[in-house]
Structure formats: structure tokens, C-alpha cells
């Protein structure tokens, strides 16, 4: 059973058709990298999968069942099985970075000590240990993206979505993030990345088991976008 299946999905935004009959299937244990030019619809595709957006046509299935509407109460429950790192990550400014990263665990009702330990471990691995007590506003763009990635994976979601995770990152940071996502995929998570970063594509192609897709003219096809 695929974690995510879309068939003939159509989405129009701002009067423009962004996705036009796209088909895609992502199974547990797989790491997919979606490439495409700016405005190709990568973020829209991930927003659909994260139940942040409703399609205008086609079929969207999550974990083997038709996906509920984004405003349906069932979507609240389903979202806890999904970890999404957005292109422009938002944080709760009154909480520290560690508390922000641990938010999914908090929503799942985990013990404060447990979630703090887990957040510290992840932040340490992503090179943000010394920023754990800082407010999100004090972080650089690259640090914010790494923190968003940590927050997306901390609760062990079954489906992980990362939108341009390598933006504003140095090479080592890109590799480290990709390695973590690949490890999570090996542990059974379904992982999808959207990027137009050549370095991330190169690493995905040569160093981890990943399937590469290109999104052009609203449709997905195997390969890498030019």
C-alpha cells in the first residue's frame, strides 16, 4: 500500500493551471526527489500531500484511503502522520528553537522531558545544538530550514515532505539533511523532496537510493528537470 497516491490531479491557482493530470505514487521506504523549474508546481504538489490544499480534480489517496478535505476533522488526525518542512518555514516566536522543534511531540501528548531530549538530539545532529535555547527570530535562513526539517521528522511520521530543504544551506548541511532523510526512508518512512538545487540532485543521484522525478507542464515524469 502506497503512503501517497495521486491520480489525474488538477490544481489551478491564481487563474493558472499548476497541476494538470499529474500521477504519482510514493510507497513506504522510498525516497523521491521531485525537480522542476520555479513555479512548476512542486510546492503545490507537496501542499496537496500535506493536506494543506484541496485539488480541483483527480484523486488523492493517503495511506490507502481517499484523503479528506483539508478542513475536515479527519484531516487533523491524518496530518499527525505527515511531517512537512515547508519552503518558508514558520515558527512560534515565543518558544525557543528546541520547543518549536518538539511541537509535534507535544501535540502527540509526549512527556516534556522525553520530547526535549529528542529535540536536543536532532538539533545536535543538524548542527543547531548551540541554538536550542534561542528564539526562532534569531536564526539565519539556513538554520531555520534545518530546524524545520528537524521538526518535520521528530515525531517519526510515516510520510515526510520537504520543500527546497537545501536552500540557504552549505554543501555539508545539504548532505547531512539528505543523509538523515535517506536513513528515515530506510526505516520505513515515505520521503518526498522538492528541489531545484543541482547539488541536492547530484547527491540524491549518486549517494542515496532515490527516485528522481521532473515536474513539467503540470505532469510528473521520471528523470531530472533541465
Amino acid at each position, binding site marked *: 500500500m502506497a503512503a501517497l497516491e495521486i491520480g489525474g490531479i488538477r490544481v489551478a491557482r491564481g487563474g493558472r493551471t499548476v497541476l494538470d493530470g499529474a500521477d504519482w505514487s510514493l510507497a513506504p521506504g522510498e525516497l523521491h526527489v521531485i525537480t522542476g523549474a520555479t513555479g512548476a508546481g512542486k510546492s503545490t504538489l507537496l501542499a496537496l500531500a500535506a493536506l494543506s490544499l484541496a485539488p480541483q480534480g483527480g484523486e488523492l489517496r493517503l495511506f490507502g484511503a481517499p484523503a479528506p478535505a483539508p478542513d475536515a476533522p479527519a484531516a487533523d488526525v491524518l496530518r499527525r502522520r505527515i511531517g512537512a518542512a515547508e519552503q518558508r518555514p514558520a*515558527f512560534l516566536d515565543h518558544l525557543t528553537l528546541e520547543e518549536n522543534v518538539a511541537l509535534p511531540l507535544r501535540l502527540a501528548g509526549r512527556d516534556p522531558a522525553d520530547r526535549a531530549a529528542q529535540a536536543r538530539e536532532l538539533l545536535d545532529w543538524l548542527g543547531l545544538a548551540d541554538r536550542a535555547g534561542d528564539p526562532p527570530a534569531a536564526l539565519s535562513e539556513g538554520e531555520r530550514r534545518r530546524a524545520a526539517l528537524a521538526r518535520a521528522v521528530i515525531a517519526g511520521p510515516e510520510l515526510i515532505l520537504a520543500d527546497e530543504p537545501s536552500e540557504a544551506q552549505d554543501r*555539508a548541511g545539504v548532505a547531512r539533511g539528505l543523509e538523515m532523510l535517506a536513513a528515515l526512508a530506510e526505516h520505513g518512512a515515505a520521503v518526498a523532496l522538492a528541489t531545484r538545487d543541482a547539488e541536492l540532485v547530484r547527491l540524491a543521484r549518486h549517494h542515496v537510493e532515490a527516485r528522481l522525478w521532473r515536474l513539467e507542464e503540470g505532469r510528473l515524469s521520471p528523470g531530472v528537470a533541465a
Partner: protein
Amino acid sequence: MTPPEPKPARRRRAKAEPAEEAPPKPRRTRRAKTRPEEAAPPPEAETKAEAETDAPAPKAPGGPVLLSRAVSATRRAIRRAWVERRTPPLAPRSGGLGTTGVLCALVAALALAAGVAGERLARAWTAEFGAAATLVALGPPEAAARDFRAALVVLETTPGIADLRVLEAPERRALLAPWLGPNQAAPSEPPPMAAMRLVDGGPDPEMLALRLAEEAPGAVFDDHSGWRGPLLSAAGDARLIGWGAAALAGALGMALCARIAGGWTARGREAQRLLRRMGATRARLRRAWAGRAAWRTFWAAGLGAALAAAALAAPELLDGPAARVPIAPSGWDWLALAAPAPLFALAAWAGARLALRPALRGDAEAGR
């Protein structure tokens, strides 16, 4: 739905080229420990953790089941509060809500005290002066005494008069003293007087005047109607002004609390969307914003009411003229000062709930 089979990218094990240490072993949640196939969806099959935190309340059938569910819900709420006690709230500080609650409650409680005092004053005046009448016999002492006795007989047999009581000499002197002023002593034997209470609207004034003129011409019956009317009218005005001020202060306080709570909640829309994207339920967001707004306002308004009570009580502890502050409540009336706290909290809750609607509906998300 048959997605095209992509050509897999060249697969290699991670060479650990950039990072030397292994990534942290992912800790799966209790639900995630199962394979996705096994875990297959039904959203209603929530984990225990969800049930303890964000699960939407199931429809309760009633009876003993309802009671047991209420007990379980209370236990869950206590446990949740216990677990969350060491963590900062999901909603940021509600700037201005506390100060507004204190100040509005202070003003409203003082206005309420004025309303209670006006009501008490009006009731006292109505009871003390509205039904009181006096009899006095004027003239030479012997004639006055004779007329007084005759008048008493008339009054005892007149319907509408109760509690007829002859006043002793000291009482009569005390009554005369304010009229004579401080420089003139009251006569040692003031004219005979009697006090009484009018019931059922009192006697017919014309009939009584005729009987007294015939049987006791030196006796004067006074039901104080000359100044009782304006006094009762003033008491009514005092009551109206007091309650009007209290209602106005209360309404303004509620509107302010609702407005500030709504503004604060609306400013947190980005945070609410973020939490929803992470799976926070509507109930969780309501608790985080509307619940926090209500709770904070409740305590702030309680503090404001306590300050007002202290300000009203302080003069009563003193000696002298300040001890007779007419606005200070008495007895159970003190409890009325606590009324603004729940009312303002309710208004703040309603304001926050209203402002939370766009984030709860999710229409902004869907149309984003």
C-alpha cells in the same frame, strides 16, 4: 491510477561522504511502530496519546456512560494540565488582556458598588420614610394633653395605621433638637408626640382630618407627604444612576475584553495555521487561544475586583467621617463585586472564539 514507473536513480548505499557519524535513529511514535500497511488508516483509530490530548470528543450516549466519560475527561484534563505545567503555552502572551481586565473590573466593580449602594439607599428611604407618620398636640400643656389622648383614641380605631407608639420625653427632645439648633436647649417638657406606621396605603387623609378636628382640635397628624414624594423620587434616581453606571461599565468592559482577546487571537493566525498543519485539532486551538484568553481575563478581572473591594473596605476600617462611606457594600453585597470576573472572561472567550473561526474553518488553508 497507474503512475508511470520511473527509472530508478543509480542506487548506492550512503557513503557517509559528508557526515561521519550516523544520523540519529528515528524514534517512531507509538502508532508509527507498526508498518503503514498494518496501521492502515482509519482516522478514528487514534493512539492513546491522541485520545489523551487532541482527540475530538466522541458523542456521549448518556446515563452512567455519560458519567464515566465525564470522569475520564476530567482525569484527562488534569493529566494534561499536569504534563503541560512546565511548558510555555502554545499561544503567545496576551498583551494588554491582563491590564485591560484589571482596569475594567476595577471600574465595573466600583460602579457595581454604586449600584448596590443606590439600591440600598432607595430601599432604606422607602422603608423608613415612605410609611412613617407622626402625631403632635400643640397648645397649652393641659389642652394639649387632652387633645393628644383623644387623638390617640381616634388613631387606634382608624384603619391603615399600625405600630402606634407614644414617644418618651427624651425621644421628643431629640426630635426637636435639630430644629432648634445647637444654641437653644430643647424644652424640658416638649409637646406630646406619637409615631406610627402606615399600612395598606394609610388612612383616608380627609376623613382623618375631619375626625381629629372634631375630637382633638389641637392635634396635628403628619404623614410627611410634603417631602416624602421628592425623597422617594430622589431615591429612585439614585437607584437608576447606580445601576445605569454599573451596566455601562460592565458593557464597556465586556466589549473591551472581547475586542482585545479577538485582536490577540487574530494576530496569532499564522501560528494557528502552523499548528493545524502539524495536526493540532480544533479543540486544542480553542484551548490554546480562547481558553487562555478567558482564563487570563478571569484572574485579571478578579484582581481588579479585589482592588476595588480593598478600596471600598479601607475607609470602613478608619474612624471618623470616612467610616460612613455610603458606597461601600455590606454583608452579602460584597459578593456582587465578583460578578465582572466571569462576565469579562466569557466576553474574552467569545471574542477569541470568533477570531479563531477562519483558522478553524481552514478556508484560508484550502484557498492558499
